[in-house]
């Protein structure tokens, strides 16, 4: 799974700098990836992972974050899983303005399914 997250981070970096762990003083905009619940029902079965991807922007107004959101959405929908076998689905997507009235965050909640092993 770690290899997948690293590969995903690399792919999303095409949109803007992407991190699994944000370094301090990171300039905006940037993307964060946070893996959530991960479940494999059987030792050989598929694994389903919940993933949260957030775009962070402090650009005045919504122009920047809406552009980045569209680019990220396109990238996710056409995401090439190789060399992994699997697929992903956007479950939720929404934009909020934080209490500082400066930072906008667009959150994608994704379900990622890694294919199981067909034979033993």
């Amino acid at each position, binding site marked *: 799974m770690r290899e997948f997250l690293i590969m995903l981070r690399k792919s999303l970096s095409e949109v803007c700098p992407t991190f699994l762990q944000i370094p301090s003083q990171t300039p905006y905009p940037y993307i964060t990836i946070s893996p959530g619940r991960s479940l494999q029902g*059987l*030792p*050989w079965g*598929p694994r389903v992972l919940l993933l949260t991807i957030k775009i962070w922007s402090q650009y005045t107004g919504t122009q920047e974050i809406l552009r980045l959101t569209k680019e990220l959405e396109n990238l996710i929908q056409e995401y090439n*899983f190789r060399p992994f*076998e*699997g*697929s992903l*689905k956007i479950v939720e997507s929404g934009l909020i303005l934080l209490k500082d009235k400066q930072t906008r965050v667009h959150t994608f909640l994704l*379900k990622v*399914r890694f*294919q*199981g092993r*067909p*034979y*033993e």
Partner: protein
Amino acid sequence: MNETDLTIEIMGKGHALSPFSARECTQTLTPLPQGSLRRTINGSLVSVGHKGHQKFQSTISCKDKASPAFECLWKGTLLKVGCIQSLTQTVHEGISRVQLEREPITLHLYDNHGKIWPAEKGEDRRVSFSSDFPGGFITYRPLLTMVVKNYHLETDEWGLTVGWSVELEEE
């Protein structure tokens, strides 16, 4: 893209599951009601059904973003269905070969502690494995030839979802 393990092939037409149409499918597999249960003269309850008529019925449904390619699907259409619902057979200790009731697409042999053992699929639904196997189970996803009884499509336009279900009966 590998969105599902489920496969639906419309015989003579090709695969029916288009991208974005089959994520998070569910499938039921139910023995078709056939024959009946009767009491013998001794009072035992026995089935008088025909073994050759032991078939499955299945309902597959899904809620995703696109419709599957069901345009040429009508009652009676033949499908090859690679099921996501698996079947499991008990394997006794001391044997090294079993015959499955249906054609497997994928199979896994494991002992009573859950340890996985190598198994090889052969001709005529036969599966062979080491004679050291201490007993356990084979789980496999069957490939079934099924006949369409009915299907259903539905779109929630503002909810951006497309739902579908198909009712099937084994040929």
